[in-house]
């Protein structure tokens, strides 16, 4: 059940240019939080924002949650200027979650940019499962933190096109290309989160072969399924990213509708 609650910023650390790690202490106990779920966070600051903004939960322990965010606009700019002890209102936990990873085979995780966040949480929540984690970003300096934090159940692969890639689409292809060139793994299950076009390509690649769960993004207003702002087409009709998702079986997504 989604709760509206308050939180206090414990820390708000800059990890790389425009990438921040935000640690929030929740004021109230909430239901169990599962990997794939997100929060709707009020981000008002110098720049005025009206709607809350959705962010994947990167980790949740005791009453603390971690958010990895990238500064792209008004709300995230506000966040980047906030200091410890500031209070932020949020809705938590929103949306559905990833299915339980396999404990027999290897789970392949492919994250693009801040899309790494929910995948990282998956590896933490299931320490007994094995993960092959591919992390693609356009900046070399984003490797360090993630690599250092992953546990022994994770094989970490980093791929950046730093200095070479000028447009995002090209980059989005390259993490999959990099995987294909460098891996001989046959995963039992695939989880991915990142730019839509990347998840689309990944789905095409393994379609009908291996189960693929994708964590989608859309512009949201409410975040709890009432406004249909985030509604898109699937093979079984219109679905909301915020409430039916964000996690979907990749094969059911009609990608053009996103």
């Amino acid at each position, binding site marked *: 059940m989604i709760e509206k609650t308050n939180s206090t910023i414990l820390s708000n650390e800059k990890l790389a240019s425009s990438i921040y790690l935000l640690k929030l202490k929740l004021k109230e106990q909430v239901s169990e939080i599962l990997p794939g779920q997100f929060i709707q966070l009020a981000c008002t600051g110098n720049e005025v924002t009206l*709607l809350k903004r959705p962010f994947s939960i990167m980790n949740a322990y005791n009453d603390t949650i971690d958010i990895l965010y990238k500064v792209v606009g008004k709300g995230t700019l506000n966040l980047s200027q906030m200091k410890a002890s500031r209070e932020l209102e949020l809705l938590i936990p929103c949306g559905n979650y990833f299915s339980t990873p396999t404990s027999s085979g290897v789970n392949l995780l492919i994250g693009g940019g801040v899309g790494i966040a929910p995948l990282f949480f998956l590896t933490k929540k299931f320490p007994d499962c094995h993960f092959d984690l591919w992390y693609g970003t356009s900046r070399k300096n984003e490797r360090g933190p993630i690599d250092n934090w992953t546990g022994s159940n994770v094989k970490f692969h980093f791929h950046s096109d730093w200095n070479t890639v000028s447009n995002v689409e090209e980059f989005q292809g390259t993490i999959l290309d990099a995987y294909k060139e460098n891996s001989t793994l046959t995963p039992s299950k695939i989880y991915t989160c990142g730019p839509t076009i990347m998840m689309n390509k990944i789905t095409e690649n393994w379609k009908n072969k291996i189960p693929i769960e994708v964590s989608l993004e859309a512009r949201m207003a409410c975040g709890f399924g*009432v*406004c249909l702002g985030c*509604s898109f087409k699937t093979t079984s009709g219109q679905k909301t990213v915020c409430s039916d998702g964000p996690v979907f079986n990749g094969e059911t997504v009609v990608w053009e509708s996103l």
Partner: protein
Amino acid sequence: MDSINTKLESRLGSMVMSNPIVPASGTFGNGKKFQSFYDINVLGAVLSKSVTLESRTGNPQPRIFETPFGIMNSVGLENKGIDWFKKEILPFLTTLKTKKWVSISGFTTQEFVDLAESLNGFPIDAIEVNVSCPNIHAGGVQFCQNQNTLKETLHKVRKCSNSFLIAKIALETNPLDEAIRIISDEGFDAVCLGNTVRGLAIDVVNKKPFFKKTIAGLSGPAIKPIALRAVWEAYSFNPNLPIIGCGGIMTSSDVLEFIMAGASICEIGTANLIDPFAMPNIINSLSAYCSQNAISLRELVGIAH
């Protein structure tokens, strides 16, 4: 909700409601999701997402854009159609103790008639007729912007329906006095002012309109002065036609502005999306206002005139 404060009791013509707070169509889903935040029976009425005859997938993504103190939406009346609505939603609404309002939207006069007629006999308290959507037989001009089609549509809907009928018109309706006259002459029970205001945003990076359908509906605090103006004018034109105010209402003070300008009831839209508890919070603070000032809301309707 602490306890029921009779000072909040409101009347929309013949309809008596526990308080003047009603969700605006399309910002409340069909109520179920809000039920998990709070008991929606505290609301003056519930109002469902506009339903059309056929199921509609709505407009392409993106559908939401934030503007200075407003939001624009291009949802495009996505809904699963009246048959699904009757099967899946009406039974749930029927379990509620508060008033149940249903919003209908058509793209031709006949669609409105069919929708209204098909709701006869169901235990609902009002039908909000969303005549702020485009008439495909009139080149896409909104029903409420053309006096002839507005008159024809309201006339036919009134004739076929035995419900309490509300006409929801655009805030830009012009001339407004004519529309108000038609709504009242055609025997509608109330007017809702109003819907979103037509707006546009350009994505300057891609040099294209942000929304695929170009024009989208602007709502939220940005439009509050416009909605208040429309309510004020409607009340000046005809103080006997009950008015529902809608547009940018966020706080109990906003509600008081609308009531003093002439609205009997207020619909809350965008505020629900910003804070799911917006409506019960407003009700609580209206309650405190009425107690502190020993005044009941009904005394305040149109008092600023």
